[in-house]
């Protein structure tokens, strides 16, 4: 059974180009899941069915992959998702303070989505920004050398972007 593409309906060309790069169709698994996550913000059951259909594998095989890689979200997250590094170099340089600051000042709490759906946060293992500790990923961008002022600016920028999209939609 092949699901009719919904999330990926506008990506047919890009998907064929990606698949064509590899000696095996299945190698396009992670690239396709990345497109899904960019479009939908997370990887739903429906999305997995679409990917399975395109690659000619079972949904179970797609789920096996999705559940293995921590960056694929299996539940909806905020429009701006924060992945805060908590491995040694970051942890000794202030991860804990940053987590507390985000919660107290901005109401962004671990493993929760804010009421307005704008923000969510999770702790993650080393993100390779050790010399710029403490660091986090804001969606797909690395932000390092975190300070309270830097956090304020980052959050404000997110809110500004969200405001701009809302205005454009009106």
């Amino acid at each position: 059974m092949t699901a009719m593409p919904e999330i990926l309906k506008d990506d047919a060309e890009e998907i064929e180009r990606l698949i064509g790069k590899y000696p095996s169709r299945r190698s396009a698994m992670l690239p396709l899941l990345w497109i899904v996550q960019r479009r939908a913000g997370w990887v739903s059951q429906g999305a997995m069915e679409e990917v399975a259909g395109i690659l000619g594998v079972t949904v179970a095989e797609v789920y096996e992959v999705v559940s293995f890689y921590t960056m694929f979200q299996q539940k909806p997250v905020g429009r701006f998702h924060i992945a805060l590094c908590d491995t040694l170099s970051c942890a000794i340089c202030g991860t804990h303070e940053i987590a507390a600051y985000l919660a107290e000042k901005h109401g962004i709490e671990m493993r929760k989505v804010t009421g307005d759906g704008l923000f969510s946060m999770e702790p993650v293992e080393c993100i390779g920004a050790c010399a710029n500790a403490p660091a986090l990923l804001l969606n797909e961008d690395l932000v390092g050398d975190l300070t309270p002022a830097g956090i304020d600016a980052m959050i404000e920028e997110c809110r500004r972007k969200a405001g701009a999209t809302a205005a454009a939609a009106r």
Partner: protein
Amino acid sequence: MPEVAEWERVLLPDIEKNETEWLAAYLKKGGYDVARKALDMEPESIVAQVKESGLRGRGGAGFPTGMKWSFLPKGAFPRYLAINADESEPGTCKDRPLMEQRPHTLIEGIICSCLAIESETAFIYIRGEYYKSAKVMEKAVAEAYAEGFLGANIFGREGKRVDIVVHRGAGAYICGEETALLTSLEGYRGYPKLKPPFPAISGLYGKPTIINNVETIINVPYILKNGAEWFKKWVHERTTGLRLYSVSGHVRKPGVYELPPTVTLKELIHDYCGGIRNGHDLKFVIPGGSSVPWLKPDQIDIPMSHEGVAAAGSMLGSSAVMVCDHTVCPVWALGNLSHFYKHESCGQCTPCREGSSWLYKIVRRIEAGGGQPGDLDTLYSLAGEGTPGSGMISGKSICALGDAAAWPVGSAIKQFREEFEEHIETGKCPYRERKTSYWMANGGFVNESFDGMPVP
């Protein structure tokens, strides 16, 4: 404090500027001349030069690169080259600036290496967290295709082909292990495979495959251009060439430092990185990425070569130096690293999956004040003495992640036995009591409350 003179840098001369060198700038300074030259060389003579230079893998194990290349079975095609840009050993952050600042040097390195091993296809496997690196590499690869430097008939040479595919991971430390990287690239969970067969015999899609780290491959064009003797200008015993040291933690100036292997750990910390911050004292150093044995302050006067660090009882690994000052509780730090390995075990082997989880639970229990009298013995029996093969995990699982989870445990207890015992005997962490810092005063780390671990 002595000021260090400007030192010679080759790979990342302007790292502070953090600018990408795009094709036009690269061509202006003679970029891709080495790749053109390599087209006229016999593959064997490229391999011979790399062998002669003494270049060893920068990914962690330090295996001689030229030797690895010569393990490919004769006459077996196609062959693949996989560039390991998973960079996920905690503390390591040097492949990212290489890709983001010098993408074309890496591409030229890939072309030269493909010519050497007679491969027509290379994959760059970039960890998912490095979105910018992947974007920069994609764009640089497109530039190189547009110029005819990649694809069919490269540089107008009939019949010579090199294709590069940029591939993103999605958050899994284990995909840095070479066989896991290949299974991940094939579209599966990143499960390591038992060796042998080694990837050089049967790798990606069952074909002969060479896996090399980004920093390893980016050195190749410089070696072909300047010669093996030039590369051996920087030498300590059997470690040659400049290398990138990632320094993080409690130093005044953390960063990525390009230095010869003769630099001592002491110079690196105190001269280049400005010493320990806030006038604090050094407590311990992890000199080669999170899995290697710890060193105490009286052990740091050692050259940062494979041999120098090994003589002190640790490993150079990925040259990632993590520095902890006297505010850091060693039991807590070990708990943090054990959490990492527990989280990143792929789960295929029982000793690694269960063992890493037990290690974490016992270490955290001790830190939180609930340590039991036999805990250190239990840790030792699980993790061994921090030497290969000792204990119930090391050498008893498919890949080296099990070893990596075990090694820091034995070494931390050996170095700080009294402090572990004090935690168990008094039922509390003296660092928390003294509130040596915010996080220590509050205990644990942000991950902790979600592990379902009862904290006394």
